[in-house]
């Protein structure tokens, strides 16, 4: 099965109900993207079981959200996971090499599609947001931070190739 259910992550941030609702909407949006565009099985992890390899080359996709929520939606994964996603999105054969540029583009496109689905679900719930343009960050040693007072929804996932993390850091404007 493509995506197994929706996991209720215990939120440690203000507005627990809201954080849980946003987590569900993001998981649902991701399920739609994988179901239609990325033929890979994945599962949602409990936060405590999430691990990423130390060091190595990582790829992150990032897109801005504005309107009812002012935030940044990001997806972080190690290179092998990014390559796996790119190969599925581009429908490459298992032995076909995938270029670094295509890998980064695929992660950027994934976060773009995820944001689109998230926006649609928020709109259905009466909350209008707009999205900016997708950006990718790649390298061996980098960190990405939002301002210290931001709320955070953080959801780990696992593919066969490894784990990836989706985070939505935001503040409310309404």
């Amino acid at each position, binding site marked *: 099965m493509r995506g197994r259910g929706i996991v209720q992550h215990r939120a440690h941030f203000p507005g627990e109900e809201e954080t849980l609702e946003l987590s569900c909407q993001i998981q649902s949006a991701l399920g739609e993207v994988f179901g239609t565009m990325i033929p890979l099985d994945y599962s949602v992890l409990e936060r405590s079981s999430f691990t990423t390899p130390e060091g190595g080359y990582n790829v992150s996709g*990032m897109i801005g959200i504005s309107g009812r929520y002012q935030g940044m939606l990001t997806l972080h994964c190690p290179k092998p996971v990014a390559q796996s996603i790119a190969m599925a999105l581009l429908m490459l054969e298992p032995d076909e090499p995938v270029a670094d540029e295509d890998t980064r583009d695929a992660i950027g496109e994934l976060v773009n599609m995820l944001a689109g689905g998230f926006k649609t679900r928020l709109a259905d719930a009466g909350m209008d947001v707009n999205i900016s343009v997708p950006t990718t960050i790649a390298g061996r040693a980098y960190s990405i931070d939002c301002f210290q007072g931001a709320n955070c929804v953080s959801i780990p996932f696992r593919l066969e190739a490894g784990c990836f993390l989706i985070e939505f850091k935001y503040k409310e404007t309404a």
Partner: protein
Amino acid sequence: MLMLEAVAGDPLAEEVKTFRCSVSGIVGLAGTHRGMLSIHAPDKVAMAITTCFLGMEIDSINEDVKDAIGELANMLAGSIKSVLSENGKDIQLSIPSAVHGQEYSIECLAESDWVIVPFTIPQGEFLVELQLKSA
């Protein structure tokens, strides 16, 4: 606001996408215009900017530096927003983010028009990059 004189140089002819030992503050623009405003500063320059911003000596890249560079990007994006649209509500900003690392590359994926302007302060140079999705 920062009491720091920054001298603008000529816009760059080519994009700069790879940064070493730097901090990048990034803000998304959404609404009638979609894009991204970034400030890319080497660690030393980022610390100098933060020192001016906070009025206290900064000697390492910490959360204050990342918040400061992010906030600087936020303020710049706010100014650009009012240039792009007379009605301030037509363009909205995301929350700022800060990327920091020994080596990273940043690439905007949209088909976009871009401009990168270098600015010089006594401690060195930083770049301001604006990406706007083509109509």
